[in-house]
């Protein structure tokens, strides 16, 4: 299909226009910076609270295993903790943005603008 469209010669211009990635315009957001401060503070505290909670649950689980109240092989627990740990890592370290930046770089390499 793509070949067919290209053969007509008309679609090529459009194909170039299509290969463009639109990212969040940071300048536009910076203009209303005060607006975000509140929510940023909330997110920071919430993520900290989640991290503390995660640690508490983790050590509580270890203690429970020691006193034989829980099984160390509780795969469900590890799965849940693992996922939340990953989320924590992605958000707290900012790796999420790095991930997207990497994806963007890959796309640019593939001919996107």
């Amino acid at each position, binding site marked *: 299909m793509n070949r067919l*469209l290209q053969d*007509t010669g*008309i*679609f090529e*211009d*459009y*194909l170039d*226009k*299509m290969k*463009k*990635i*639109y990212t*969040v*315009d*940071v300048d*536009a*957001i910076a203009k*209303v910076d005060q607006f*975000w401060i509140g*929510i*940023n503070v*909330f*997110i920071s505290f*919430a*993520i900290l609270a*989640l991290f503390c*909670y*995660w640690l508490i*649950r983790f050590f509580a689980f270890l203690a429970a295993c020691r006193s034989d109240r829980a099984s160390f092989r509780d795969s*469900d*627990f590890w*799965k*849940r*903790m693992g*996922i*939340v740990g990953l*989320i*924590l890592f992605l*958000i707290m370290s900012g790796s999420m943005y790095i991930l*997207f930046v990497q994806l963007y770089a890959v796309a640019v390499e593939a001919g996107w603008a």
Partner: protein
Amino acid sequence: MNVKFLIWGVCLSLWLLFVGFAYVPVVEASPSSVALTDASYGIKQNMMFASASTGSSSSSSSGQTATEGGGGGAWYIPEWVTDLMEKVDSMLQTFKDLMSGKLIYDAINGVVILWADDTVEPVLDLYSKSFLFSPQVAEMAFVQNAWSISMWISCAIMIVAIILMGFALVKGSKAPGPLLKNFAICFVLSLVSLTAINIINVGMNGFTAITMDSLVKDSGINYTNIQGDDVLKSMVAGSKALTDATFKEQSLTEMLAAEKGGIFTMFAFLIFTVDTMTVMTLIKLLALIGLAILSPLYISGAALIGRIDPVLGFLNVFVRTTAAGYLMSFYWGFSVKLQNDTINQQGWMYDLGIPSTLFISVMGLVVSFLLYRHWLKPLGYALSDPVTLGGGAVLEGFGNFGKYMGEFVSHVGSQFGIPGLQKVGSSWSDKSKQVADHGKRMREERERQMRDRSKGSRSYRQRFSDAHADSHADMTLEPPTGWIQSVEQLDDDDITPAQFKGLSLLDSGTSLQRTMNRTGFTQQTSVRLDPDTNEANISEWISKWPKALRNQVALDGQQLTIAGDPTAILKKLDAIELGYDVEASHYHKNGVTIQSDTGRVQADGSEASKHVLNQLASEEDTFQRVDLPHAEAKDAFNQAKKDRAEWTKHAELRDNGLWVHSDVIEEAMYDLGQSRGTTTSVMRVELPSNSRFLDDMLESWAASGQYTELISAIETGDSATELFVKADQYEAFEQAYDQYRKQRKPYWTTRSGDIKVIEDNIAITYGSVPTHGMDMGSFEKFAKQRHRKEDTATKVSAMPNKETKPDEAPHVWEAAITPIPAVIPNVDAAKTQHYPLPSQIQRPKRKLTLKSTERVNTATPPVEEVAKKDRQMIVTDRLPMRRAGDSSDAVKVSNVARPARLIGPNQPKRKLKAIPAPRTNSTPTPVAEKPVKNAAQKEVAKQAATDGMKAAVKSGAVVAGATLVSSGSLKTAASQGLKAGGKAGIQAAQKRVVKDGAKAVSSDSTKLLPKRGERKKK
């Protein structure tokens, strides 16, 4: 003498003047005025005058040179004469044009064309930038900014939601699977939303360009760069308008006016094509920009509330908008192609002789209708529901489409004997039907919500919390306990409503005559002539009358019957001073008679007469007479006037009784009625809030036939959860209600259209509506109620004074066939020609202790029943006395026959009933009672199965491998492996059950056994 000299003098001087000029050399007129006939357009007309004037001025100079050269021409005609003749000629031509209308025609055409040109001009830029191709919205700076902001908002909200979800995950109260997947997908989608929109936008434009290239087939045109007027011109003159420079000079309206049909074609084109397409292009532009900006919000919104319909609704609107843009450009391309064909004298339009520009205009109308039907209307629907953009309806539409396609495939399969295809088709159809049902429920629930919202019954905060109420979906929920929310006893004052007999227009004389003529009645007057007159003389006299008058009368002895307006004939009788006596004068129409002196209406009860009466009641002021002795009626009326009853403004006390306007009769009935001195006790029952099963319940009781007595004692209220039961029937009601409940499974509907039932205190999704279901209404509302632990304790409260609707009013049909008991002497017609309205005074609402929410027609007993009782009576189940178009009550009336009202003589008095305590034990889960294991047992069984499987695989594999190595036969190895695996699996499972089973059973028994104290109580 002086006068004669003067005339002679003037003649002489004129002669001298002529002779003197005759020696001046003759000029040959240059034929510059030939251009005069060449004008064809109004615009050129202006130029024509200009050129004519310059022509004539140049003619004199050229003329002189011609004479000097001694050019030919009549030498005897002087130049100024030729000039004069030319001017006279041109004047005559102008005069001719003026008289024939050509001048005016051209002038008006010119003006209209110029004006039309002005109207088109402002929209030309829109056409050049947005009509053929949708503009690349993602490239617009303000769209990027706004998108960035909305993207950032949705990003922040989603991160907050993910963190909250993280808490739930760590706590272990949520399963990570689908939730995380939803979030991940929606997060990425909202990030790339503008890019995706750009791809669709530009791709569609590219597709449009290809389509145009293949339609127009004129290479060398850059479609993206066409001027606005060229876009429109090419729809009139084909693709040449884009390439040929000669068209540049002409304006669009000039080109249109030169087409067949002239100025009318121009108007058709401007109105049907240019105007409609302008509006559509504008809406397309706004919709695209709005959708691009809001896209991240809709996607993240879908993730937050865990539902697909906002995304579906968004996609639906977006796809429709881009498709609408494509359709518009396709219309353009097709028009250009048609014009090209017509200019080249080929194509079907040329063969059929259809004027192409007119056809294109009509096509513009068709295209705009299509756009309205398939784009604007869905767009409007989506906008009316801005949260989900009508996503439920989209799902339903998809499901229905899939269903029909599946059915079609299945039919094809059966036709050609391909069972596989048939099977695939029918399974496809089934699945699609499920999808459609789900979508339908989604839509209906959403619509119900919107209705609630429009009533303004819910606060903004409630709405907001409702939007997230789906989080209740997998929560532990107890089934409802208070099956009767509240009961209260009410006293219903037993009033015999006033009776009405007799119908009248309360009008007479010329005003009545006018009314009657208007409504198509024919007048008939019987006149008794003086007994002394001779019949033969009279008939001879009558035969001399004009034919029209003669046909009006019929003579029978001394009795003269006049049809139609009797005035002329009575005047004739007066003129010969013949004694006569007008016996009666009526108006007739289809069995309805109206007395001309009193306006009294009588009917023979036939079908035709009913029709006439209905018409009369809806179009004219009709009055009914209160069936009370005059003195009593007068007292009651005066009392009501003192109380400032509204109806008294439309009532009139006459010698023959009190007449009340038919429209206010319902209000008058109770005011004029008499108390029987008794009160009826009625229980007002409030069913679980938001439930919707009341109608079904009453229907099923009526259908079963065993509750006739109970049904006659029940009436429904305004809301779907309120009903009134006669106190003596309340126990029967309770029993019947319990019975009904126990047979049914209560279910709730979520906003996303899922059906929920509660089993083992957990709300689970039920595939479809249960066969014997009980519609409990909105799941979210129920969950919230439960969540807040709203106590559904029964309350007894004082009866609020509620506005009531009185008993049924007598129908005009009945009123018209009941005779007035007393014959009353004639009222002075002059006094009552116009019905006087009393002064406008308001009265405070009367305090009624009557509790009744009567629906007007429900009070009317079934037609057959009444007909049996009283054959004379005209029976109807129509609403009584409603003006045409007044449907305020009709809205409430359902087609289900409802029980009658509770008013009747000898109601047994009852003491206030003790209010039944809320029945907590009657959980409505009549499911098949199979032995259900408790959670612990289930867990053990699950683990046992896992253990068994693991062991089986392990040992089976070992044994099979060993056998394969030792024997070398694959078959033996497999069978040995299976056997060993099975054995090991069973052993492992048994081991697990022995280990944990006892524990689980014991935990079960401790839970189920009632406590000692409780048992004792029982």
